[in-house]
């Protein structure tokens, strides 16, 4: 980023949204705080490399996501399940949507959802980002984003209904 960063203003504007995204990914408040802090640390030390100030928000979300996935890769000792296999296990047809939603249940279901789906769903609901924006932030193709969101929502709804949070609507 050419020119000086107004770090305080950027923290004011984005720390809450980043925290919500981080909590959606990690499921733990302390981890979420660490991720947000580390993201802003990188902004303060490397943000000057950004040339377009209008893309700071997207850069912050991308960086936080990379920090999360990077940290996860260090923590997970066993091989990750290939995405194709995971997607195969998800319900192809959407269930009936739950009629009741609260964060307590939603967060627990999110935590059980494979992290491949967690990030696009969080961005989908948190920031009203378009599919294109989400694809850019996560660095995945547009079609993949659409597929992950659709299948992720279906899986999320199934889990919520299994937990009894949402009362299955009677058709």
């Amino acid at each position, binding site marked *: 980023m050419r020119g000086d960063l107004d770090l305080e203003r950027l*923290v004011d504007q984005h*720390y809450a949204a980043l*925290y*919500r995204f981080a*909590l959606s990914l990690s499921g733990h408040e302390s981890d979420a705080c660490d991720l*947000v*802090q580390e993201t802003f640390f990188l902004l303060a030390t490397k943000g000057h490399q950004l040339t377009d100030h209008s893309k700071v928000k997207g850069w912050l979300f991308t960086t936080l996501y990379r920090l999360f996935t990077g940290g996860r890769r260090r923590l997970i000792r066993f091989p990750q399940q290939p995405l194709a296999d995971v997607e195969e296990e998800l319900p192809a047809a*959407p269930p*009936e949507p739950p009629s009741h939603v609260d964060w307590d249940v*939603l967060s627990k279901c999110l935590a059980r959802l494979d992290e491949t789906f967690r990030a696009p769903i969080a961005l989908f609901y948190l920031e009203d980002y378009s599919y294109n924006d989400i694809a850019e932030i996560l660095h995945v193709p547009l079609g993949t984003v659409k597929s992950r969101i659709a299948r992720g929502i279906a899986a999320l709804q199934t889990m919520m209904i299994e937990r009894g949070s949402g009362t299955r609507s009677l058709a």
Partner: protein
Amino acid sequence: MNSANAKEILISCRPGTEDLAAPEAAAALEQARRDPDLQRWWERQQAFHERTRESFRTIHAPRSLHDQILAHAKTITLPWWRRSVVWKAAAAIALLCVVVAVWQKAPSENSFQTFRSRVVRNVLRQYTMDIETNDMTHIRQFLATNNAPADYVLPQPLSSLPALGAGVLSWQNRSVSMICLDSGDQGTLFLFVVDRAAVRNAPAQPEYAAVSELMTVSWSEGSKTYVLAGHGGKESLQRFR
């Protein structure tokens, strides 16, 4: 498109967003208008999206996190080339260098050389005597009255020359006395007297220099600096020193 296909598309369409602007979403909505069951499912799906979106937004970021981020940012040690204080110091040094360079290169406004050049060229261009008289006493009185140097000391050869008159010039807000003397064969001689403190690097001993078409000899004595200019050569001026 059947209802199952339509559900796969509509499940990821948020109400009130551009998601529904896509052609496949329009086709899915069209299918919902034809299928009442799908329409009811779509209505519940929209309600789910709204509630889920609201639920995500109930997450409150701790205010302490905000403060911790800023506190942490203050402790970050940036590489030296990214510290603003380094750039400010570098800019200040560069500016200072430029100022010094300009100051050293440019002829100083109050240097003796500039003074000599100005007064001589002033005579060559056009000069007028403010007082015309042969009486040196009157000349001193006139100069003193006009706050110009009047307590000058003329070398003996000069003091024997008849006076023609005098004038007062201004140099850097200081008055300069101009005394005109008749040298006879070499025409008019011009003697300029200024306070020694008004010019920098004034010569103490006689210094000869041609300025344009006039020859000059300059010296300082006591608190005064003198420039004598005439149309003759160096030898002719040496006669009056």
